[in-house]
């Protein structure tokens, strides 16, 4: 047996038992579940209840991603090194979010004020209201008006 074949044979041994649990019939069943979840994730936010929106849109996105990772990518039977590799990327994103979010998500600090962000909010709210919206041109007009207004401190 060549080294290549040995490597792949070992890899498939790592998936031992998943052959019975995974197969075309199961994949189609999982796909059907994913489609049902997609419909729920679209209909849920129509109720316009914030908790329901969060659960149906983002909660279901998490469930769908989990199903694809487990059932289609077979990550549940992969060797730990694969998890370590993927976790490395996730940890870096966590560090990025933790370091940057406090600055981006606050428009006022003890000794500073993010006037550009405040102007963007004012202009965006003025132009983005679907009730009186006729196109993106209004956004530029609102943005110009907000810039002409005195900065808020």
């Amino acid at each position: 047996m060549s080294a290549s074949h040995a490597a792949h044979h070992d890899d498939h041994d790592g998936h031992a038992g998943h052959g019975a649990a995974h197969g075309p019939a199961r994949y189609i069943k999982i796909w059907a579940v994913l489609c049902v979840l997609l419909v729920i994730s679209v209909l849920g936010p129509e109720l316009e209840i914030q908790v329901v929106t969060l659960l149906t849109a983002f909660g279901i996105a998490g469930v769908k991603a989990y199903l694809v990772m487990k059932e289609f990518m077979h990550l549940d039977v992969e060797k730990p090194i694969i998890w370590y590799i993927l976790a490395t990327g996730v940890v870096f994103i966590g560090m990025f979010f933790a370091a940057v979010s406090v600055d981006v998500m606050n428009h006022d600090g003890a000794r500073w004020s993010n006037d550009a962000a405040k102007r963007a909010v004012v202009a965006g709210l003025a132009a983005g209201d679907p009730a009186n919206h006729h196109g993106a041109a209004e956004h530029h007009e609102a943005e110009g008006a907000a810039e002409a207004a005195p900065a808020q401190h």
Partner: protein
Amino acid sequence: MAEFIPVANTRSASGVPTGKLALYWLLCSEIVIFGGVLASYLMHRLAHPEFGLQAAHTNVYAGTINTFVLLTSSLMAVLAHSAAEHGDGKKAAKYLWFTIAGALMFLCIKAAEWTSEIQHGYTITSSPFWSFYYTAAGIHASHVIAGALVMLWVIQSAKKNKYLYRVENVGLYWHFVDIVWIFLFPLLYIAK
């Protein structure tokens, strides 16, 4: 003359075939790329209430159909992997063609959607929301194109029953592209 086999396919120091290991390192870097965009969008979305109003102008129907198309193409990719595991390269190649068809359908719908949005004046410079929208969806679409091109290459060897492990590797990449869209869809289309 002996057939050339890349070094990456002839050893496995970690117990995972080296080609597959490299693929996961690629996915790790992709997590950082897409994670960075999604995390930045999330921060701005939470700090800018106007994003919700602007998101109301995205086409939920197009987004929903595209999600369905990608989920179906993921099913085709895993069926190709299943066929390759059973040594049926021809069947695997056939399923990969279906996956490519899904990629093309996704891109056509995306092109029609963008055309309509640009005609209505929503361009990448219209507002921070639209900048995020076009950047995130554009990077994702470029990955769809890349995945489809690699699949075309994999099909050439799979239909001759050669290098069938490549079917699994390209499938893993495709599932990742699908997962990214699963998170982009509610962020850009559903949360108003």
